[in-house]
């Protein structure tokens, strides 16, 4: 007699495991590859890729400008996503209007690429308020700093949206380091058990500040975590925006059509230090970073688009000009100190301030009036 455990269909197991090698659709020379062994994923249409190109160029320029703003003391700190543009842009291009994004501190570029006013998007890092944009309006959760803690929120929101009959998917960004936190585990498990339409995109940029991936996990790759939750998983070349778009689109429609969550690991690399305040020289060799330059997500797409005739020098210059103008406007708008009202500290603690909070606000008001 058999044990009353579900007799395991090996198909099911195979269906949950990622491709043994990362999915790649366009290689670093800009050539279409047969990186998708299974043949599940289709190369996105050229217009989509052209749009991705445009956004990646503007996004990278935004990122450089934000780093520059830290040198001018305009931002408290900035965690760059240079080198991760394919995920930042591919991630938001895969979203429908009604979908939600759950970003981390590193994903400011993706916010901007989804249309958030860059000044608002930089609110957290500028320091006038914790979250500078309206999450409900943008359908973007506040950027999350305590690692992996937003992952259960994404699961919960996705489930709630489905319960409300909304056709929305929640996409959560998470770092390789973040996957080690208990909340990552609990989030994936909840998403799977409640069949929530949530997609978890791990941007494996090979470092958690200074800690290399090898200290983070002994798994064959992070995508192998999915099967432990019964979650379909995939790993991709995270610097190939075509692969990001193709696999993410599939993941979104997998989730949207009621098949539950999906886990995607994007292999990429953090080109800059952890933030402007970090000194990457302490823990990694420049030669390692140099290895990733030829894998750049923008240059390979540029080659591909040029190759298929969808991009010429003039178009490249147009995009660069757009990026420059974008940066210039940002720089000028960030040039002045934002107005802050010290009493606002007390305005959003509770729906109605308690008597104690009102008294404390009064203390601050008086001190400010006295000029202290």
């Amino acid at each position, binding site marked *: 007699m058999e044990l009353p455990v579900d007799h395991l269909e090996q198909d099911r197991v195979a269906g949950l495991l990622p491709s043994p090698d990362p999915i790649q659709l366009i290689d670093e020379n800009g050539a279409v590859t047969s990186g998708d062994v299974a043949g599940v994923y289709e190369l996105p249409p050229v217009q989509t890729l052209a749009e991705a190109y445009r956004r990646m160029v503007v996004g990278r320029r935004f990122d450089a400008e934000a780093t520059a703003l830290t040198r001018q003391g305009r931002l408290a700190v900035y965690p760059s996503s240079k080198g991760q543009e394919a995920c930042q842009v591919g991630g938001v291009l895969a979203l429908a209007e009604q979908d939600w994004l759950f970003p981390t501190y590193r994903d400011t570029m993706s916010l901007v690429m989804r249309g958030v006013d860059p000044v608002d998007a930089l609110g957290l890092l500028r320091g006038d*308020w*914790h*979250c500078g944009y*309206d*999450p*409900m*309006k943008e359908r973007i*959760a*506040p950027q999350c700093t*305590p690692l992996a*803690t937003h*992952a*259960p*929120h*994404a*699961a*919960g*929101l*996705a*489930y*709630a*949206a489905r*319960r*409300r009959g*909304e056709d929305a998917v*929640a996409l959560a960004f998470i770092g390789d380091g973040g996957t080690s936190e*208990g*909340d990552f*585990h*609990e*989030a994936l*498990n*909840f998403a799977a*058990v*409640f069949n929530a339409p949530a997609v978890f995109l791990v941007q494996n940029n090979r470092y958690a500040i200074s800690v290399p991936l090898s200290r983070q996990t002994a798994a064959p790759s992070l995508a192998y975590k999915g099967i432990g939750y019964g979650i379909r998983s995939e790993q991709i070349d995270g610097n190939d925006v075509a692969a990001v778009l193709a696999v993410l689109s599939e993941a979104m429609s997998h989730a949207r059509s009621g098949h539950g969550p999906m886990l995607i690991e994007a292999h990429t690399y953090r080109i800059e230090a952890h933030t402007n305040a970090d000194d990457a020289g302490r823990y990694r060799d420049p030669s390692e970073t140099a290895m990733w330059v030829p894998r750049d997500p923008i240059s390979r797409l540029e080659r591909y688009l040029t190759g298929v005739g969808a991009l010429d020098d003039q178009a490249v210059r147009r995009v660069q000009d757009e990026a420059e103008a974008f940066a210039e406007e940002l720089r000028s708008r960030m040039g002045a100190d934002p107005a802050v009202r010290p009493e*606002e500290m007390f*305005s*959003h*603690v*509770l*729906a109605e301030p*308690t*008597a*104690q909070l009102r008294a404390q606000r009064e203390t601050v008001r008086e001190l400010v009036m006295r000029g202290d």
Partner: protein
Amino acid sequence: MAVSMVQALNAALRDAMRADDSVVVFGEDVGALGGVFRVTDGLTADFGEERCFDTPLAESGIVGFATGMAMRGFRPVVEMQFDAFAYPAFEQVASHVAKMRNRTRGSVTVPIVIRIPYGGGIGGVEHHSDSSESHYAHIPGLKVATPATVDDAYSLLREAIDDPDPVVFMEPKGLYWSKAEVALPARTAPFGHALSRREGSDVTLVAYGPTVPVALEAAEAAAENGKEVEVIDLRTLVPYDEAAVTKSVSTTGRCVVISEATGFAGIAGEIAAQVQRACFYSLAAPVHRVTGFDIPYPPPMHEQHYLPGVDRVLDAIEQLEWD
């Protein structure tokens, strides 16, 4: 009809679920089992799996999932099975639930109720009798409610669920089976209003949750010695009704704060600190505290010596400079 606190809580959940479709109840064992204390008894049967359901065994996940659901319009009421088992959710509570409104300038609100059975006196083995209310009271952005009576159990829980802010709802498990003649739905005083459970002009006992009956019993005993004791039940620790406590102590000139939690750096210290400041010129004696000792909650066979009992309260009253 005599109603137990568990029944009152159950009725409050039912009525809230009936009144508002967005109220959902979830946690460990809240479904078919009805919770280990039966507070959610019958909710799945009556409202369906969609409204009351079991989750995987992961408290941080429960609170985090609730946060996400609240962002999309639900009003989750989640159960932490015992007080110490809410600790895994501490980061979610402190860094998100308490802060979400603030972080987002009021754009994202998470009106979650986190129900936590707390306190001792039920012979539970280790990790089953903690009192963590001071931790939650110390985290800005949370409200903290704790009923001591059956009608308040109903009323405060209804209010907690309706409240636009997240509420940590501490249920004194030692009083779960206490009964009272109450007609439900009962509505008592709102959040932030302490209630006097007994009038008295000689000394004020400030209590909440599990220590209210202790205070009342001590007051009876003190009355036999000719001391008229007022008993104030705080009902909510946040908002804290400073005015009510100040008013009483200004009259009585004496105050003892009673709390089951470890005394050091706990809520009883806060109350004592506020009273001595607000009532400095009325106090005939320093404010005393009768609390749990500064030790881990002891094993069942020791707990009678740990809990702040009537004798310790009477001793404290005795020490309040009566001559």
